[in-house]
């Protein structure tokens, strides 16, 4: 059995395997180090960082729901200064790619944060994921993420500031992601990642109160995987830049679904809360599954969805 080549290159950056951990589900690496060989991961997308530190929302911040969870963390983060002084240098100790996720409430703030990280970049900082899709703060970018023209303007502006990977993280909370995917491509993004959490809600029937302090929150976990796959598929048809698939992945077969539909890389999110080593376990399972199937390179699986000509002709 020949072993599958697990490397994937997007935007000129080579990832040792397609398994990344999603922003907000892995802290800044140090929290998970005792449980996980960080250098085994394809990459780490760090917790959203803003210009100033943010304390996050009042409790209650999480509620478990059927095969998933609602969260309303509210972008709790250390701020970009601590991020570049403490977190990036720590993450430079690991043999994996680091992607800095940025959250902001204005184009100026996004630029300021990116510029500060760029000026303090470490050797394994591969680039940026721009969070235009947090549903849990009043000023967290979702107003950007639901406007095609703002996403396009933001992407264009940030593109002019960096040659590193520029990834725009899209929200599923829009009627169609296709115009957003196309706008990111035309504005010069290297890739898009999707989906961020799905807006959701849970109510205590005895007190008639919302379970989350902020009333609504973001749904994640296995419950949203079918939504994520459909959005990745829609985006795949709408643009030709690489896609990073996110949403409910807990196994190697889940990863294969995303790759087949059109993602080049994936991010593991909520599953890290159950098992902080799941990224490595999935990577090892995936390697074995692909090798057994005789697939020479993981790249060979990307966007290989078979839709019959008949259904294509009918517009599917």
């Amino acid at each position, binding site marked *: 059995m020949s072993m599958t080549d697990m490397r994937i290159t997007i935007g000129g950056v080579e990832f040792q395997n397609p398994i990344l951990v999603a922003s907000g589900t892995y802290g800044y690496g140090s929290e*998970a180090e*005792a449980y996980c060989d960080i250098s085994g991961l394809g990459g780490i997308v760090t917790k959203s960082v803003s210009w100033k530190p943010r304390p996050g929302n009042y409790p209650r*911040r*999480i509620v*478990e729901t059927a095969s998933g969870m609602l969260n309303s*963390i509210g972008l709790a983060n250390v701020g970009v200064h601590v991020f570049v002084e403490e977190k990036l240098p720590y993450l430079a100790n690991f043999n994996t790619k680091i992607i800095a996720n940025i959250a902001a409430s204005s184009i100026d703030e996004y630029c300021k944060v990116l510029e500060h990280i760029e000026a303090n970049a470490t050797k394994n900082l591969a680039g940026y994921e721009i969070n235009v899709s947090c549903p849990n703060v009043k000023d967290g970018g979702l107003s950007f993420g639901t406007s095609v023209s703002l996403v396009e303007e933001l992407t264009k502006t940030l593109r002019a500031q960096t040659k590193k990977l520029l990834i725009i993280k899209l929200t599923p909370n829009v009627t169609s992601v296709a115009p957003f995917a196309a706008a990111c491509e035309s504005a010069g993004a290297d890739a898009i990642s999707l989906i961020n959490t799905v807006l959701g809600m849970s109510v205590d029937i005895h007190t008639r109160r919302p379970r989350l302090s902020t009333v609504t929150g973001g749904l994640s976990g*296995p419950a949203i995987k079918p939504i994520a796959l459909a959005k990745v598929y829609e985006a795949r048809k709408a643009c030709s830049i690489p896609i990073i698939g996110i949403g409910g992945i807990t196994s190697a077969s889940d990863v294969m679904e995303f790759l087949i539909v059109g993602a080049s890389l994936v991010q593991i999110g909520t599953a890290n*809360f*159950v098992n902080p080593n799941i990224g490595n376990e999935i990577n090892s399972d995936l390697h074995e599954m692909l090798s057994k199937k005789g697939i020479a390179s993981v790249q060979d699986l990307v966007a290989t969805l078979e839709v019959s000509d008949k259904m294509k002709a009918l517009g599917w």
Partner: protein
Amino acid sequence: MQEKPRSKISLSKVLEKREVAPGLVILKFHNLFVATEAKPGQFVNVLPKVGFSDPLLRRPFSVYNTQGENVEIIIQDHGKGTGILATTQVGEYLDVLGPLGKPWNYDNDKYKTALLVIGGVGVASMPLLTRSLIQEEKTFAAYYGARNSSLFADEYLSEIKHSTDDGSQGFHGSVIDNLRKDLKARKYDQPKLFVCGPTGMMRAAIALANDFTIPCEVSLETEMACGIGICQGCPIENSPSEAEKSGKKFQLVCTHGPSFEREEIVL
């Protein structure tokens, strides 16, 4: 030296199951790491079902007792996840992550008498503390309150002062009233309260400690996803003085707690 990855996560075989009080199930399982590493007040995060399933997330439980290579947790069925765990049978396996969190702050000379203040299933964090206090030859007493005499799970406790709402055992009234009476009588030399129970009881204990100007540490129970500081899902608000000192509005119950000194937080 950092322990090897996943040494804190393991499948643990259930060896024994018993009911200590109505609705309170004890599961004893084999887990050498937790049995040897767990300190009083720490917890384990346990999956209702092995693998990624529904319910998806782990549930936190205080380490109730350790014996040799075995560990006990106490489960109160109050929902889907704990309901499934309460039906676990001997011979089945639990997916256990831990020990997690910081221990009770008992190992110091800032007090002379430890007063354990216990309500309901809050007893879960007290046996290991009791054992350590005995080992260190500290003076202590355990104020334990329940609705009635059948609800006490006091097999591993010592120096117990029972109180019941219905008067069926010990002091007739709340655990807080029983303790207040003895504090008023100046029964204890330089006491510190170690409190675990329902939130209302813990608030009352903090108010009592404020009245008598004595140290008071409360062990909190909150919704939690990861238990290791990644998800940021279990914040507790810092008191103004703590916020000023740390520059932070919140701390995480999983990694900074689960127990906090009364001055640190707003409960």
